[in-house]
């Protein structure tokens, strides 16, 4: 029973993809919408059913394994298409299908009347199906299939409006930059297989802990390579540059990439392989530092963006950085908790930003918005709720609980420390600053454009549901200072070990006070900086145009990579456009041509020369035969 439900979870969106991919052009738009959103909706219901089933069973029994078939059977390598459902996978599947379904529902309204509706929903379904393969795979080989499937579908969807060449370039950039990480991850899998002789996830964990000491070479190498793969997919330094450009896709696609699928894959991978990473403490420390640095850089960049979606993109990088920070200090379930909560509010931020963008006729520029509070009350309220959750407004929002847990772990766990904790708190301040700026610029102040479209009911339902989740979603995990009911970590306990942070309750309360203070003062700063003294648009107050430019360009990583990687490569390619190796083959071809011309000369058509040649030939052959 359970295994069929598990199979359906992956098969439903995949079936939606197949049907829409084959017949999408011939179906009416209504049918496309029903199949596209319905397949993911049914999968979400299926996941809910599995959750109920898990909750009714004792924690030890909360696991379903199912092998579909053996992919290859060669020597020692037996990659299996097998599924594993444990609490971690179920949480991820719930997020992917649940948030994914709401985004699909929203897309019906958002993409109404667009060309290529069938293609859009087919690719969205493929995206969800690939992500489900990724989170439910029991074999790293199979996981890698989902990993690449996610990359493929993100490429297709970012470039959905392919008539504009800019979008195609953004899609290629996303594909190529994540590919660097993917290649590292593939090598990491080879290292694992060479060292352990298996790629089955639970076996890898068991054999790695048995075979390798803490800090052993292969363990460090494999986990570092897997981390590089995760950093590519999750847009962490130094592979983060693709994410802001990925905004070229339609807004629901951005929501899907940022909330439910794609960027969370890296977090999931590290959490899933936590046993391996614990054998490499240095790599874990690197994870934490990379996460913290990404969090701060991306947060600062978000302050200076003009495009509302780019603000959200940098915000995602920053929040994923926070999850990596949590992973790095060993707070596995805190990272997953923040992943879930982030999925709620980030999807909501994108979807309500989508309402604004749609209402202003595809206007992305924050400085052309303003005063939309009265005109688009639904978008305003939902955006404000999601923004509050992102900023971690104390007590009332889900973001507060998850962020607070991470900061506490970063501060107090044995792998963390005051430095990481302080970075986290500063990150919280920056976060609420940019959130406050977006809300103030877009919804307050004087009106600059007139909204032309108001959201229909199809757009409104997902917004309201996600707003509810962004507020109460945090109540599944209450910290010791506030009732102590960590049911989320309890649920994840069979998959992920409990956090290590040990500290007094009073310290925790002080830290929570600090975090709250940081988030409130960020909003106050935003109010002072962007509403009270609203100045010449682009420039940030206090810092001047130079710093604003650096921040707006995301610290110039694009320019740096362009200079260091892209241009040298294109130069080499151009210099070698007449491929040096080709010369050998061109020489061979020329030799053949030369011989051809020489032999052509002998074909005179004169009968008598032929006869003479035969005579000479015969004499030579007979001569050789006789003289030997």
């Amino acid at each position, binding site marked *: 029973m359970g295994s069929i439900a598990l199979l359906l979870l992956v098969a439903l969106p995949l079936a939606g993809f197949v049907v829409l991919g084959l017949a999408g052009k011939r179906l009416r738009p209504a049918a496309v919408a029903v199949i596209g959103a319905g397949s993911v909706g049914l999968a979400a219901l299926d996941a809910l059913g599995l959750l109920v089933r898990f909750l009714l069973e004792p924690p030890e029994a909360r696991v379903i394994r199912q092998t579909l078939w053996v992919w290859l059977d060669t020597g020692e390598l037996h990659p299996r298409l097998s599924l594993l459902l444990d609490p971690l996978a179920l949480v991820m599947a719930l997020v992917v299908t649940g948030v994914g379904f709401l985004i699909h529902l929203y897309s019906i309204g958002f993409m109404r009347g667009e060309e290529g509706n069938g293609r859009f929903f087919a690719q969205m379904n493929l995206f969800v199906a690939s992500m489900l393969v990724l989170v439910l795979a029991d074999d790293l080989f199979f996981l890698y299939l989902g990993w690449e499937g996610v990359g493929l579908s993100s490429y297709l969807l970012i470039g959905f409006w392919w008539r504009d060449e800019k979008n195609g370039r953004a899609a290629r950039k996303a594909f190529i930059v994540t590919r660097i990480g993917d290649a590292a991850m593939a090598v990491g899998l080879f290292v694992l297989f060479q060292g352990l002789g298996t790629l089955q996830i639970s076996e890898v964990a068991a054999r790695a802990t048995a075979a390798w000491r803490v800090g052993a070479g292969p363990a460090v190498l494999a986990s570092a390579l897997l981390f590089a793969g995760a950093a590519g997919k999750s847009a962490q330094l130094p592979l983060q540059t693709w994410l802001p450009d990925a905004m070229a896709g339609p807004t629901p696609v951005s929501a899907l990439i940022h909330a439910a699928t794609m960027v969370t894959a890296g977090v999931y991978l590290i959490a899933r392989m936590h046993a391996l990473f614990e054998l490499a403490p240095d790599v874990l420390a690197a994870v934490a530092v990379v996460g913290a640095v990404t969090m701060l850089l991306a947060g600062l960049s978000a302050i200076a963006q003009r495009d509302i979606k780019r603000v959200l993109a940098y915000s995602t990088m920053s929040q994923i950085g926070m999850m990596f920070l949590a992973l790095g200090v060993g707070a596995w379930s805190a990272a997953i908790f923040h992943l879930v909560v982030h999925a709620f509010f980030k999807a909501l931020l994108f979807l309500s930003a989508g309402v604004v963008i749609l209402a202003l006729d595809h206007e992305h520029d924050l400085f052309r918005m303003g005063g939309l509070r009265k005109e688009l009350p639904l978008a305003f309220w939902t955006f404000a709720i999601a923004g509050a959750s992102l900023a971690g407004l104390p007590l009332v929002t889900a973001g507060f609980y998850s962020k607070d847990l991470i900061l506490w772990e970063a501060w107090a766990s044995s792998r963390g420390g005051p430095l990481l904790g302080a970075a986290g708190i500063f990150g919280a301040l920056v976060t609420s600053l940019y959130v406050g700026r977006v809300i103030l610029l877009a919804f307050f102040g004087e009106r600059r454009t007139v909204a032309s479209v108001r959201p229909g009911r199809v757009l409104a339902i997902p917004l309201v549901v996600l707003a509810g989740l962004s507020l109460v979603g945090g109540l599944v995990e209450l910290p010791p200072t506030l009732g102590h009911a960590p049911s989320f970590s309890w649920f994840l306990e069979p998959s992920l070990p409990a956090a290590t942070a040990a500290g007094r309750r009073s310290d925790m309360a002080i830290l929570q006070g600090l975090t709250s203070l940081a988030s409130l003062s960020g909003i106050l700063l935003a109010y002072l900086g962007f509403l009270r003294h609203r100045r010449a648009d682009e420039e940030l107050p206090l810092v001047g145009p130079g710093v604003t430019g650096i921040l707006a360009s995301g610290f110039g990583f694009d320019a740096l990579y362009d200079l260091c990687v892209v241009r040298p490569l294109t130069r080499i390619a151009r210099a070698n456009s007449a491929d040096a190796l080709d010369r050998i083959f061109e020489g061979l071809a020329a030799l053949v041509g030369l011989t051809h011309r020489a*032999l*052509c*000369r*002998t*074909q*005179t*058509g*004169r*009968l*008598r020369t032929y*006869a*003479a040649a035969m*005579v000479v030939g015969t004499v030579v052959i007979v001569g050789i035969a006789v003289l030997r």
Partner: protein
Amino acid sequence: MTAIPLEHVLLVAAGLFGLGLVGVLVRRNLLFMLVSVEVMLNAAGLAFVAAGASRWQADGQVMFLFVLTVAAAEVSVGLALLLQVRRRLGTVDADVARRLGG
């Protein structure tokens, strides 16, 4: 009756063969080239017969019958071709019929 030594007959055959060969190489008239080929064939036939006679065996004469047959076939095809060449090109000069030249 004293037998003619084999060597002498073979020398005559070689001479005939050489005459035919020279004819094929130097004549430009296709008809004379065909005649020269006949001479070469008969030189080979003469060599077969002489070799067979010197060993008191009939094989040489059998081979000569084959050579005759081949020669007959060759002449009939050759003459037909000759007629066609004459009809199409208006000449029987082998050096003019060189359309196969590469």
